[in-house]
């Protein structure tokens, strides 16, 4: 070990510096662009247990790719072997070079090209002996096996569990080629060195040995290392401008997310970080139902993110139904839906509204407010069913939007009109609180979500009617008879995935039907979502038809949903009757099951008047 330098290392060093300088600049920008509230979250997060949780998540997601594994083991193996294998090559290469040089602060290229400087122990004695050479060969083999999967995925994506794979832009293809060449180039370079020195372990040693049988490897040693350095350098030159920017960005995202930072209009740099952390892996393509009905159109989130990252206008921005299936499938946890929503401009619709207000029921205070929602007024069967259920349970309730002239504000928000939505929110909050009710029941998951997430209603519980019915059943305030029928459940996006209400609808349906319905949070999009604005009704219908086919694959007697919009959307596309969960409950109610003597009490079900 005379001198640890050769001119070929300069190529790598130049490329790596580009990536390094870019990354330091970006991290500074990401942190500097946070709002002061978010910055203090980060500051406090660094000195808390969240730091360690973030570290564990970084290892399990950025290196092991646990979430991808749970989706498809072969796809998980591909991602894991490349990420974890490469990481271990870097880590162990570093330990090996430090071990022999005794210098912790040597230039990076020393450990990257260590085998060139130190060919290692003699072959074949070292081939099956545990040692640095053996471990390094083992991980190189892991990476190469992953590379094989990656190549298969490019041409036959179904074999690794993806129906579709991302259509790459030219610069990404270039970087992809460089990435694919890195590991074979390393194998050849190391094998040449090992062949020339008669050293190496089972992979590089054997290959080097074979080389030395065929030709003299010595003159080829330097050119192969030059090639390896060139390939590494090209990859690192390209990294900042391609999807591979996700490699350094993803851990930063994991840490900031663990500290509690979320996508918001106040912290635009966090959106930028999310966009860079998107690896364009293509898992969102299969999650998106529009892939089926709009083939070839780049509606999905990976294309959306890429366009935003390139500073272009995102394609099909108003076509997306915001159902959130991509967001819950995303293994990186990029906040796809909030990012999309922020891109919808506020055009000033809905400002300065004068909505009819409400004060109690003839000035009397009530315990329960019922907010049907504007969609429910188009499907009055749900309202009359809720009337029946409320009366049967003996609750003192008031129909808040009996005139059908109120709106929760979420449709405005989905259309980008955030200012008007917040005006509306303030107005409704006041009206709700003035009624003095302790419980707000709504029939519409769209309303439920915004009431639950954004409204400030101290002392007032917000329930979707499926939750309310489930509580009534649990406390035996109402009784239902078994229908003897089978049912399938369509999980509304805003209720299941959006608000996490999964248990209660399942309980209600299981008490009515003999089907074992367990909502999973992975429900389909019915196609009627208000998130979609530009999507023409025919396309919506195609989405609905596809979803209905999947839902009724077991030929249930009835299709149950918990959203007036889903009910309306499914009705024309399936021959199986579609019912709301409230309608089904009301239909199989057993009369006289409630306790009439408590009917006049203001304390019903423990919901007291909120003073």
């Amino acid at each position: 070990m005379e001198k640890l330098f050769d001119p070929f290392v300069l190529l790598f060093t130049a490329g790596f510096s580009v990536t390094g300088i870019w990354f330091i600049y970006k991290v500074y920008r990401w942190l500097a662009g946070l709002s002061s509230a978010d910055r203090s979250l980060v500051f406090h997060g660094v000195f808390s247990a969240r730091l360690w949780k973030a570290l564990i998540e970084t290892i399990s997601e950025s290196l092991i790719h646990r979430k991808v594994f749970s989706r498809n083991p072969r796809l998980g193996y591909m991602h894991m072997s490349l990420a974890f294998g490469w990481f271990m090559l870097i880590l162990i290469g570093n330990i090996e070079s430090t071990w022999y040089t005794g210098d912790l602060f040597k230039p990076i290229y020393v450990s990257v090209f260590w085998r060139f400087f130190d060919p290692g122990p003699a072959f074949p004695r070292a081939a099956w002996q545990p040692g640095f050479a053996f471990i390094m060969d083992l991980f190189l083999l892991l990476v190469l096996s992953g590379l094989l999967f990656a190549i298969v995925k490019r041409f036959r994506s179904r074999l690794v569990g993806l129906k579709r794979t991302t259509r790459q832009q030219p610069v990404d293809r270039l970087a992809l080629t460089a990435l694919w060449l890195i590991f074979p180039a390393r194998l050849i370079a190391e094998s040449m060195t090992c062949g020339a020195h008669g050293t190496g372990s089972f992979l590089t040693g054997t290959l080097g040995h074979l080389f030395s049988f065929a030709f003299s490897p010595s003159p080829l040693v330097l050119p192969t290392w030059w090639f390896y350095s060139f390939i590494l350098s090209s990859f690192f030159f390209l990294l900042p401008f391609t999807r591979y920017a996700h490699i350094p960005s993803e851990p930063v995202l994991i840490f900031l997310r663990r500290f509690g930072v979320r996508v918001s209009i106040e912290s635009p740099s966090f959106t930028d970080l999310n966009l860079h952390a998107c690896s364009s892996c293509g898992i969102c393509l299969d999650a998106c139902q529009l892939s089926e009905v709009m083939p070839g159109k780049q509606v999905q989130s990976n294309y959306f993110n890429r366009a935003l990252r390139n500073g272009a206008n995102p394609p099909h921005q108003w076509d997306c139904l915001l159902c959130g299936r991509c967001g819950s499938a995303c293994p990186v946890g990029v906040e796809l839906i909030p990012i999309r929503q922020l891109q919808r401009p506020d055009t000033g619709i809905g400002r300065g509204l004068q909505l009819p207000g409400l004060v109690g029921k003839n000035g009397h205070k009530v315990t329960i407010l019922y907010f049907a929602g504007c969609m429910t007024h188009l499907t009055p069967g749900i309202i009359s069913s809720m009337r029946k259920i409320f009366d049967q349970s003996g609750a003192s309730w008031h129909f808040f939007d009996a005139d059908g002239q109120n709106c929760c504000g979420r449709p405005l928000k989905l259309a980008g009109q955030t200012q008007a939505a917040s005006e509306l929110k303030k107005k409704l909050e006041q009206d709700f609180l003035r009624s003095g009710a302790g419980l707000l029941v709504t029939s519409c998951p769209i309303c439920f979500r915004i009431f639950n997430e954004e409204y400030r209603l101290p002392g007032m519980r917000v329930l979707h009617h499926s939750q309310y019915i489930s509580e009534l059943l649990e406390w035996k305030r109402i009784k239902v008879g078994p229908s003897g029928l089978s049912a399938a459940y369509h999980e509304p996006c805003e209720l299941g995935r959006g608000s996490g209400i999964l248990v209660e609808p399942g309980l209600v349906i299981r008490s009515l039907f003999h089907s074992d319905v367990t909502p999973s949070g992975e429900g389909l999009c019915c196609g009627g979502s208000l998130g979609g604005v530009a999507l023409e009704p025919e396309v919506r219908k195609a989405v609905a038809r596809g979803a209905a086919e999947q839902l009724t694959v077991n030929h249930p007697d009835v299709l149950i949903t918990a959203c007036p919009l889903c009910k309306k959307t499914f009705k024309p596309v399936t021959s199986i009757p579609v019912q709301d969960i409230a309608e089904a409950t009301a239909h199989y109610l057993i009369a006289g099951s409630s306790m009439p003597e408590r009917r006049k009490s203001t304390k019903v079900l423990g919901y007291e008047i909120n003073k």
Partner: protein
Amino acid sequence: MKTKFGFDIHDNRQIDLDLEDTRFADEVAVVVKSWKACMKCGACVGTCPVGKGVLNLTGINYQPALTTCLMCGKCLLVCPRGINTRHLILEVMNKYREYGKAV
């Protein structure tokens, strides 16, 4: 930029084609193609939660009221002609903004 859809109707119910200016309507129809299918049945106006006259897409002087739209999409659900009314309203507002004529 005149902002009228279609023609004007006098009190004596005579159609006045002198006042017809469909340029704006045509421009909007480039984006929202289904708008051309409107047969002026009034279902959208009838179902609108904000009140009568807000969604008067069929006639004249609709624009000041449009700004109070809630984007709830009920008009979209009731339209017998399958017109994407929500997109239409948003597009009209976008066009206004473009021309610096926000109401």
